């Protein structure tokens, strides 16, 4: 997409907003629609746009595969560990009440952690799935077209 100047400029303009929006959705999920999953998808979408316009190799430089390899499990691990934290602090699994000084504070902290875990895993999985699909080329068979 070397010649698409308009596209490149508009995308460059748009991507920061998408990332911001993803953060907004991630942390505003308590009040409005949205949450970790949606934020993760939007974050991944911003990345996909970047990869589409600037090429996947550039995108891989920004988010290398070995980093993704750790991000994919990190979110799930964070979620599970939040659950174990409930046990460690004397409650049940995934019991957020015990995480904070008051039950409500604990709930807030728990939800924050958990949603963050969801966001990380979802965005990392989506990006790596896209990379896997887009990074795979095949010999172009003309008759298929």
């Amino acid at each position, binding site marked *: 997409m070397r010649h698409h100047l308009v596209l490149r400029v508009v995308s460059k303009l748009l991507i920061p907003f998408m990332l911001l929006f993803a953060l907004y959705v991630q942390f505003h999920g308590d009040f409005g629609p949205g949450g970790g999953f949606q934020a993760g998808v939007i974050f991944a979408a911003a990345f996909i746009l970047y990869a589409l316009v600037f090429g996947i190799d550039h995108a891989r430089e920004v988010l290398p595969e070995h980093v993704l390899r750790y991000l994919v499990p990190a979110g*799930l*691990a964070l979620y599970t*560990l939040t659950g174990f934290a*409930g046990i460690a602090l004397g409650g*049940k*699994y995934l*019991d957020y009440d015990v995480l904070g000084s008051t039950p409500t504070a604990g709930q807030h902290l728990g939800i924050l952690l958990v949603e963050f875990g969801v966001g990380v895993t979802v965005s990392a999985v989506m990006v790596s799935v896209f990379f896997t699909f887009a990074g795979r080329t095949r010999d172009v068979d003309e008759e298929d077209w």
Partner: protein
Amino acid sequence: MAFLDHVAILQVAVPLLAAPLCVMLPGRHLPWALTLAVSWFTLVCSIVLLAEVSAGGSIAYHLGNWPPPIGIEYRVDAINALVLLVVSGISAVALPYARRSVEHEIEPDRHGLFYTAYLLCLTGLLGVTITGDAFNIFVFLEISSLSTYVLVAAGARLDRRALSAAYTYLVLGTVGATFFVLGVGLLYMVTGTLNIADLAERLPPLAESRVVQAAFAFVVAGMGLKLAMFPLHTWLPNAYAYAPSLVTVFLAATATKVSVYVLLRFVYTVFGHEFAFIEPVLAWLVLPLAVIAMLAGSVVAIHQDNLKRMFAWSSIAQIGYMMLGLALASASGLTATVLHLFNHALMKGALFMALGGVMLRIGAVSLASVRGLASEMPWTFAALVIGGLSLIGVPGTVGFVSKWYLILAAIEKGWWLLALLIVAASLLAVIYVWKLVEAAYLQPAPQDRERVRDMPPDMLIPLWVLALANIWFGIDAGLTTSVAGTVVNAFLGGGS
């Protein structure tokens, strides 16, 4: 933290935590070691759970400390403790065996991912079994199903048909799961709850509701797809035949059992078999289908050349036995189902393990390729024979015990023909097992095949553990029948 207070959740949460860790582990041995450790840990958990509930009580664990209908609850009673034992036990036995087999069948740089998928599958199956929440069943069912598709497709390195098998499985499995969700949604619509115990309380007054009837139909159809109930079995033979050996062992022994458990749970706990509309469905739909599965599965198995496929078809027939017991809805019938659930895991586990060994040594598992192999791999084939005998139902093996109860149940109802059909299906099993024995023991080895050694000990020992379990639980059926008795009491006694 007291281990005993949290066993129920640790059973599922530990493998779930291990899965993301496993991806990060480098090399081939560490992922395997982690998976092995986790499997044994879950085995310990399920033994503890079974010991706690075998008195007839049940354990409840409230996730997030929310009381049941609000939050999700784990509830363990005799039946799911038994299924948990089957799943974790097979996993614990299969993993020592897995190392060489996986090294042989999976690309070296994919072992971490492969074991992660395996751990997720284990998590999913355990999660489905232990949970007391209808929607949670769906979520964990999908964890196990998705990882199963991946695991089956991993067999593509040796045979590309694994891919098409995985695809078919994916489509049918997803349709099945979606049917199940639809059924749960209908139930939620009329009761306002998802908790299984709560559902069981709120459903009886609604027995006449058409919504409940439709919900029953969808749950049965959905689970029927997942457990390969005839005629919804089409995905199974290829999926089992072309999956990597470890996956076949694990799936054949556990995945369908868990689905059978879910069906039992829904038919007997949630709906209660006394519901006016359920009895005719069991008697006129499930029962004939089960009989057809029993006979047709065995007949098709006779005509198979690929041994893995042969035993896959035999699995369809064996699922027929389980469904038959379920459909008979009597104490002995249910006992037979519960016993067979346990026993079939032992026999199929042993059989597929042995075949995995053959695969390792000669790279093929067709009738022709095992000709004369018994003299070269005596231990493997001895175990194979034990598994085969158990499959037939020879006295002294576990297969006999469950079939005995099944025939008893048929005779109790005065259905002599049915009893005869059960015996006939067993005789069909004799034919295909004999074909295998004949090829391996009586026919000469082909000239162009190099002589091979028997399986290495780290694979033989797990195989023989299962083979001996087939005999042990066949001679001393006390433990299993007492658990089955508790289950049956809970289902038929307190089910109103």
